[in-house]
């Protein structure tokens, strides 16, 4: 029941918010719905802690250690983004960037997006997972094109086409998995994760090998793995900032979650380590490509979207390595990246809003105008660069250790990528934060508590991780990488 | 016993103080003879010192305390340096307080003060001299250290006392390695003491002078202290050379007879070295300033060759 309510709350919220339209109550209502979702997630977590993993609604929904923390994370980031977008979107309307009539669409689509994320996570059915991912594509595509600027529309179009093709490939992969499973499980249960895991050793390896190719290409497009990443920078750069934050913080995670689930399925039966190797390859390519692309960027949000490619690549790489340590590290990395990257986008959005441009060459001296914003931005940038003691450092540390054990040849490449990424991002961040301010300032009142709260959470992850979370990670690692 | 020890030390210091001007006079006299001049006599330096001491000194308006203090510092360091070298006997209380490296350090202390004092007045010549003196100093230092290493490696210590004791034990032989080191040492001595061909101590030709440029503004007793100090420096260098390369005759025991012989032998070594210096200064012309690095580089090379020789021959 609690699982069902968790997806129904945002769905109902979407209807309500769509009905409210552009009334200012929508901004608060959005927060309320998100808060309710988070409460539901909390109740669900409490039950899971009490009873252990459980399923609901004819086994169609389920929760286990792997998705429970992602559900919590999703609900949390959804709430903080809702809080952030209250002030941010109001300012966007006030500054004339956004037609107020579109706020209703924005809120409805936002809740639909959250709904689809949660559904994708807790659905026990690989078909429903696929449909939820597609719903997410639709809703975010509309959100990316929210400003109706030509560039925004172009980005949305690109997003549509590429993710559409990706989603189609993922469907083919899903069909193949069903094809492999239905001879073992029979027609009706061949789509349920809980059943599939039980028979994963008996699934036909030849089919699963090819199915995984399509699944990683399909869902990998949504993760933003190189070379399927082309939509990602545009969508992040052109959409409203809260959407950039949830794209990076949630959508990429959920897509990676799907890949990881399928990897656990595919790598059990096959003798070769094909899925793992594929993920290592794509992950490494994304890490390197993302890192080396950072230096050439001028657009603030585009810069950090390439950083998302890099970090998702790192997580993919770590999942590909397999083994409890790497998987633990990858899960931690997903969590830390989600929180940090959304904080980075919050701060970047505030910077772009108050400076009136996203062109980094023209942003200087934030520290002079607004020291608090400057420090927040600097802190977020440093956190995303994997500077201790933030959580990303912890996960990168563990990933390196795991990589040295399993694929030592990759470590120099990873270190190179980390170094290059640092040089590229920090060069820009410093130039923006320090120096003398140029140009007129647009009066805004940035809402910094949200990014700061995220940074605090990431700090906790790096300095004193809650044992509960670690226990989940360990459990989840046992589940996907036995 | 202790009293004896300190008395010997005191006597050596007095000997150095007294004989240093004589050595300078002797070198000058030899040069005069070699140039077919009559010369001013062996005692001329004493007369000059006395005259300078009696004159009223002149201090420029711009001078700071550093300027006035420097002659004392230079003189004092030279005297203390002389006390550190076992010229006559190895039983000196102060010789144990410092080894050859410290000795080099003491000399560079004096050099740095002299250079700083020259810069104190803000004259073109002063700062130029300071720069040149320091240049020669830092170029000579590695060569000097390499020279010291050869005997130090033979005897296993950089202490001059140990070196003298070890080398003198083997009887009168000059190792090939030591021969190379000795030539290098002579070259370093010439550079460090501002002698030809590196510097000409007898000229105030503005653009070529090194050592003299440092003393331009001194007069009276300050100049006397500096000149006396310079004489002691030459004396000490010859003393070190004698200890390193001709340690025979330096008193190992404490008998008065031994000491007397040691004094006599040391005076003979001084006279020979002084005459040799005069010959070198007569034969060679002054080098251009930027040939000095090559000159000292050669000294360094010879010293290194000596060192390698030691590995080859085992001693």
């Amino acid at each position, binding site marked *: 029941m609690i699982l069902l309510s968790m997806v129904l709350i945002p769905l109902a919220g979407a209807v309500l918010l769509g009905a409210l339209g552009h009334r200012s109550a929508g901004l608060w209502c959005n927060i309320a719905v998100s808060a309710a979702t988070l409460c539901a997630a909390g109740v669900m977590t409490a039950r899971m802690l009490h009873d252990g993993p459980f399923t609901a609604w004819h086994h169609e929904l389920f929760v286990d250690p792997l998705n429970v923390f992602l559900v919590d994370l999703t609900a949390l980031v959804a709430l903080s983004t809702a809080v952030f977008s209250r002030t941010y979107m109001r300012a966007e309307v006030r500054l004339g960037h956004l037609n107020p009539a579109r706020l209703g669409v924005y809120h409805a689509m936002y809740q639909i997006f959250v709904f689809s994320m949660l559904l994708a996570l807790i659905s026990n*059915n690989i*078909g*429903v997972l*696929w*449909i939820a991912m*597609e*719903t997410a*594509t*639709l809703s975010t*595509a509309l959100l990316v*094109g929210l400003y109706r*600027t*030509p*560039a925004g*529309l*172009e980005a*949305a*179009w*690109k997003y*549509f*086409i590429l993710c*559409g*093709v990706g*989603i*189609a*490939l993922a*469907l*083919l992969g899903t*069909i*193949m998995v*069903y*094809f*492999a499973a*239905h*001879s073992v499980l029979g*027609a*009706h249960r*061949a*789509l349920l994760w809980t059943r599939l895991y039980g028979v994963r050793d008996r699934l*036909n390896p*030849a*089919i699963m*090998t*090819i199915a995984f190719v399509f699944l990683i290409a399909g869902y990998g497009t949504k993760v933003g793995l190189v070379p399927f990443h082309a939509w990602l920078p*545009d969508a992040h750069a052109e959409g409203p900032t809260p959407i950039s934050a949830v794209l990076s913080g949630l959508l990429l995670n959920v897509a990676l979650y799907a890949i990881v689930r399928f990897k656990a399925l595919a790598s059990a039966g096959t003798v070769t380590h094909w899925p793992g190797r594929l993920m290592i390859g794509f992950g490494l390519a994304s890490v390197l490509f993302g890192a080396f692309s950072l230096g050439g960027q*001028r*657009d603030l949000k585009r810069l950090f979207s390439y950083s998302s490619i890099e970090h998702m690549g790192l997580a993919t790489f770590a999942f590909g390595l397999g083994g409890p340590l790497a998987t633990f590290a990858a899960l931690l990395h997903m969590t830390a990246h989600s929180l940090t990257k959304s904080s980075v986008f919050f701060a970047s959005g505030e910077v772009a809003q108050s400076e009136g*441009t*996203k*062109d980094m060459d023209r942003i200087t001296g934030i520290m002079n105008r607004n020291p608090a914003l400057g420090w927040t931005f600097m802190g977020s940038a440093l956190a995303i660069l994997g500077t201790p003691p933030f959580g990303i450092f912890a996960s990168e540390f563990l990933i390196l250790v795991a990589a040295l054990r399993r694929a030592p040849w990759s470590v120099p490449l990873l270190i190179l990528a980390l170094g290059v990424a640092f040089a590229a991002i920090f060069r820009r961040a410093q130039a923006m934060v320090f120096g003398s301010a140029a140009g007129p300032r647009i009066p805004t009142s940035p809402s910094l508590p949200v990014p700061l709260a995220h940074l605090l959470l990431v700090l906790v992850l790096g300095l004193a991780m809650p044992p509960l979370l670690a226990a989940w990670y360990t459990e989840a690692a046992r589940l996907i990488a036995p | 016993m202790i009293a004896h020890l300190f008395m010997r030390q005191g006597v050596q210091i007095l000997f150095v103080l007294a004989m240093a001007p004589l050595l300078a006079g002797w070198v000058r006299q030899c040069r005069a003879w070699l140039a077919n001049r009559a010369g001013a006599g062996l005692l001329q330096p004493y007369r000059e010192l006395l005259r300078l001491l009696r004159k009223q000194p002149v201090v420029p308006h711009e001078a700071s305390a550093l300027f006035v203090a420097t002659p004392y510092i230079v003189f004092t360091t030279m005297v203390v340096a002389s006390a550190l070298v076992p010229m006559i006997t190895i039983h000196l209380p102060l010789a144990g307080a410092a080894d050859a490296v410290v000795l080099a350090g003491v000399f560079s202390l004096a050099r740095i003060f002299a250079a700083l004092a020259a810069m104190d007045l803000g004259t073109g010549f002063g700062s130029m001299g300071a720069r040149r003196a320091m240049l020669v100093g830092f170029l000579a230092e590695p060569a000097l250290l390499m020279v010291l290493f050869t005997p130090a490696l033979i005897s296993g210590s950089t202490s001059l006392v140990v070196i003298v004791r070890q080398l003198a034990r083997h009887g009168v032989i000059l190792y090939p390695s030591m021969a190379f080191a000795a030539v290098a040492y002579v070259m370093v001595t010439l550079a460090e003491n501002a002698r030809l061909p590196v510097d000409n101590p007898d000229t105030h030709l503005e653009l070529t002078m090194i050592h003299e440029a440092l003393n331009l503004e001194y007069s009276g007793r300050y100049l006397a202290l500096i000149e006396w100090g310079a004489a002691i420096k030459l004396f000490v260098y010859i003393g070190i050379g004698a200890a390193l390369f001709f340690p025979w005759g330096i008193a190992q025991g404490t008998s008065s007879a031994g000491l007397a012989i040691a004094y006599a032998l040391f005076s003979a070594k001084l006279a020979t070295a002084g005459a040799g210096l005069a010959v070198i200064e007569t034969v060679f012309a002054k080098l251009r300033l930027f040939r000095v690095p090559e000159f000292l580089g050669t000294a360094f090379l010879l010293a290194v060759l000596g060192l390698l020789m030691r590995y080859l021959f085992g001693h």
Partner: protein
Amino acid sequence: MMPLAAPINLLAALFLLVVFAMLWQRRLANLITIYAWQGTILTLSIALAAYATHSAHLYASACLNGLLKIVLVPALLRRLARRLDVQWDRESLVQVSTVMLIGLGLVIFAFNAALPIAAAGHGINRAIIGIALASILLSLLMMILRATALSQVIGFLAMENSLIFAATSVTYGMPMVIEFGIALDVIVGVFILGVFFFHIREQFDSLDIDRIERREESR
């Protein structure tokens, strides 16, 4: 061997042929007609599968497909083509004969790639997985080679048809095939709406960075 394998295999061959025809055809109106034919073949195959398995949800799926892909979507596309005044696709860089050759290569590749699956499967229409794979790759090729948005959308539609074809024919009906179909059709619908949004510009696939940045500055 599943019942009615022979006619379904025949339909599969026809399906592939139609995809080739789409790849070859550059006149938009004809392309839409061919798409309608593809829809017909798909509907027929679903109906056959439904008949073979006597499953109600496959019948429903066949009806839905027939309605959408033979009638509605082609009509919508034709209207759109008229509105936007696009009759011909722009010249593509690659000659038609070359395209055909590449397509042939893709088909050979797809058949080979599908062999292990066909070998592993039992009691299923093995060949169809190869044909579905080939159709998907060919549709992707069409999306790559066509320059106007409308033809790209048709390429995507062809891909969607291939997917549904695979889902229904290979396994004789996955449990959620209707949901999949609806979901895909929603995205198709949004695609077509997207074309409306974009009718301001005749060509969407060039993302000129300089232009975007200039716009940014002027904003």
